[in-house]
């Protein structure tokens, strides 16, 4: 049995209506599988456009990265600004 801490931000936070949560996981899980689980819990997340990125213990990780007990997992919606196609300032 593993316990992980989840962090939600911006559009994700608003749809989940929480800034953080904990989940207990029965077996080995990737960050992406965890996100799929959260999306099933909160169907309104399905309307988000643009893929989220994943952070594990405050570092960007690949979607296939496995979570460990006591990890902090964050689902990172698109950050502000960014693309030079779309320079905002």
């Amino acid at each position, binding site marked *: 049995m593993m316990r992980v801490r989840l*962090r939600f*931000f*911006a*559009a994700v*936070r*608003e749809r989940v209506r929480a800034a953080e949560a904990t989940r207990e996981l029965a077996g080995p899980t990737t960050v992406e599988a965890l996100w799929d689980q959260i999306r099933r819990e909160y169907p309104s997340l399905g309307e*988000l*456009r*643009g*893929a989220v*990125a994943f*952070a594990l213990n*405050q*570092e*960007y990780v690949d979607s296939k990265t496995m979570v460990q007990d006591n990890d902090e997992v*964050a689902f*990172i*919606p*698109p*950050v*502000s*600004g*960014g*693309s*030079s*196609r*779309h320079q*905002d*300032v």
Partner: protein
Amino acid sequence: MFEVVEHPLDLARLVAAVGRADAGAIATFLGTTREHNAGRRVTRLEYEAYPEMAIREMRRIGQQALERFGAKAVAIAHRVGVVEIGEASVAIAVSAAHRDAAFAGCRFAIDRLKEIVPIWKKEHYVGGEIWIGPQRGGPPDSISIT
């Protein structure tokens, strides 16, 4: 100096933090709230951060600016919460021996910050509100929540 703060930014503090006896140039950047964006009349912006990770990514960007451009020191501060028209949401200061490196390092820092630092901007405009994207790798769109 790498900070996420809830109060107005003080550029002079960042400039003081990067001053060095061997630096002849300091370039800075301030990102400020514009009254109009993409045809919308903006009333205010609201920033939200993943602060622990944002500071970590800012520190990494600062380190890269030193290594890639030979900058002497880098300071980055980002404000969260409501930022009114004309106020600054982000401030960067980069010192270097010469101005080429100071400008290059400062430009690199703001570009990279906007690509990867986990800070989000909600634009409040006349008629609605919207989270502004996009991020590296994602489509160049916005996430509408109105």
